């Protein structure tokens, strides 16, 4: 089967569909709930409070340095759950496959999803497959949904932000956006840069354990990057954000590529970083907790929440000036997730 391609009949609901589910999806994403093949997965959840989210992935190319659409589809949803302070548990995955996609390509993606799910401590318990004719999709699109268990107590959120809260980022920003952009055809750039794509449940757990009650709000700065996340927080909380340009970690390769392409690294997407707002007294402890985890080794304190300039994000430049940091407007970085 591995030299074959996906046919429209693979989505027809007949023998080929069943063979695809059995030989590929069930084989790699194996667990008792999925194996039961019921119309809906029945899962037990500790506690009654759940976090629930969904996300679609249309990244081009399907495979890029540091990841692929499968790893991204697991991480994206797992990380959205983790940012709510939830422990990610179960995922559903829907595949829209273009007729003619090599079977081996699909298998590589599903194997990667299975590996990432194990890494993240989640199981894929429900799924769906549709095949569309050539040109009806670009290779493969994946939608994942996920549920996670929330601990007791006040949920994390923008409403908890207070002036004076410190802002932290868990590592260098922009790796994913630039790695995907460079991997695309047409850009005459070469680099060893890899996507930061990673499941962040463990990192969040380490942070919450170290600073119980002091973490206000978490977000993974995906599309729109750090600038979009901070602007969302500023608008949502009716407070200001102030960050030091020099404190934000950015890899040399990312800076160089951004300089050449006229992009701002603060607008470039991450898929394995988090931004945290923590109470002022807990900032150093939070920083230590992040740095003590392999996925947070490059963490930095980058600024603070302010009562001044509500709704706006102000950047203190290396030259000592202050300027606004706006949401990105363009769509230069389309289809990066």
């Amino acid at each position, binding site marked *: 089967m591995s030299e074959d391609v996906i046919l429209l009949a693979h989505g027809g609901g007949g023998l080929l569909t069943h063979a695809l589910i059995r030989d590929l999806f069930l084989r790699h994403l194996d667990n008792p709930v999925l194996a039961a093949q019921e119309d809906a997965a029945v899962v037990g959840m500790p506690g009654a409070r759940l976090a629930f989210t969904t996300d679609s992935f249309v990244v081009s190319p399907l495979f890029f340095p540091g990841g692929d659409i499968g790893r991204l589809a697991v991480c994206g949803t797992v990380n959205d759950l983790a940012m709510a302070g939830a422990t990610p548990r179960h995922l559903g995955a829907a595949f829209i496959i273009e007729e003619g996609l090599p079977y081996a390509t699909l298998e590589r993606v599903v194997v990667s999803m299975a590996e990432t799910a194990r890494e993240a401590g989640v199981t894929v318990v429900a799924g769906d497959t549709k095949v569309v004719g050539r040109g009806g999709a670009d290779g493969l699109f994946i939608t994942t949904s996920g549920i996670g268990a929330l601990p007791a107590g006040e949920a994390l959120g923008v409403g908890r932000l207070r002036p004076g809260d410190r802002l932290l980022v868990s590592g260098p920003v922009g790796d994913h956006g630039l790695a995907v952009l460079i991997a695309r055809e047409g850009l005459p750039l070469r680099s060893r840069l890899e996507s930061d794509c990673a499941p962040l449940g463990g990192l969040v757990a380490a942070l919450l354990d170290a600073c119980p009650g002091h973490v206000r709000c978490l977000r993974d700065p995906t599309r729109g990057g750090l600038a979009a996340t901070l602007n969302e927080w500023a608008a949502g909380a009716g407070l200001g954000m102030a960050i030091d340009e020099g404190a934000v970690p950015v890899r040399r390769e990312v800076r160089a590529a951004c300089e050449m392409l006229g992009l701002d690294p603060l607008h470039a997407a991450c898929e394995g970083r988090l931004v945290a707002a923590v109470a002022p007294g807990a900032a150093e402890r939070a920083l230590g907790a992040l740095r003590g985890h392999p996925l947070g080794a490059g963490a930095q304190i980058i600024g603070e929440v302010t009562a001044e300039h509500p709704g706006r994000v102000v950047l203190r430049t290396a030259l*000592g*000036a*202050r300027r606004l940091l706006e949401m990105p407007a363009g769509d230069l970085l389309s289809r990066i997730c």
Partner: protein
Amino acid sequence: MRYVDEYRDPAAARALLARIAAESRRPVRFMEFCGGHTHAVLRFGLRRLLAPTVRLSAGPGCPVCVTAAGDLDRAIALARVPGAILATFGDMVRVPGSRGTLETARAGGADVRAVTSPLDALAAARRHPERPVILLGVGFEATAPGVAATLERADAEGVPNLFLYSLHKRTLPAVRAVLGGGGVRVDGVIGPGHVAAVVGADAWRPVAEEYGVPCAVAGFEPLDILDAIARLVEMAEAGRAEVANAYPRSVRPEGNPAARAALDRVFCADDAAWRGLGVLPESGLALRPEFAHRDAAAAFAEALVEVAPGEEPAGCRCGDVLRGALEPPGCPLYRTACTPERPVGPCMVSSEGACAAHYRYGEAA
């Protein structure tokens, strides 16, 4: 990062700022010719760091912004030629003409492609020998040599289906129009570094000699710009009008002879329409007769017959912004009807546009 960090050094910047503050006594207003300079000034927050006697204003040096609406309408008509591929640099896709943009033409079925190099258009012509590939040529003397070299290569390789719609422009006629037009006070010009790398710093001597306005050619990093401003202050205080080269690592007095020769082989000066400045004599770069077979306007003349005369968007004051007569926040449409998501005028679209720079970087209170 080499070639960047050394030109952003905070200590060196403070030293230059102190020198400017010590030397500047009378209030001056310097024009950043280049949109690239306007962006760098706002991105690095230089305005507020400068002595209060030194004011900076934007100029006409954003090639996307000065493209007249009528020229865009014709480019959109060319994009709709059946079978054609229209290749252009990214920003042009979203600039409003009189009726729509290249982006809306693309949504309507036209094959409009953003390229990062004119060679990408040549590659598309090779890949699609049965289809005309029309390169929308936008840019000043810094961009045009690459386009000239691409057309020469297409001839050498025998690729017949690459055409150019040249909206290329020359910088000096625009500076003359602003300085000679009156109404806008300019005590110094921050000269365009990339253009001067091609045409030479000496090409800007008319600014000093004919208009008595000092000029300092500048690069695009903070120290480059501050160095140029320091030299302009020095000249303005001494009452001297000369051309200083504050970008010697890229700019020679005579420029780049090979690039200038390529320009001269392929292009000749012709009248051109500028948004905000009107038609300026000998301010455009048209194809020479030897390259008439590459001229999209001639090859697809029938597609252009029907295009009505262009109209600038109602209420848009990009023209005043481009002459330095208005700061972007002074335009009634700024941040209200005109935003980067829904731009009315080109200055809000282009990555070199003054309105886009003000919107994006603002200046925090």
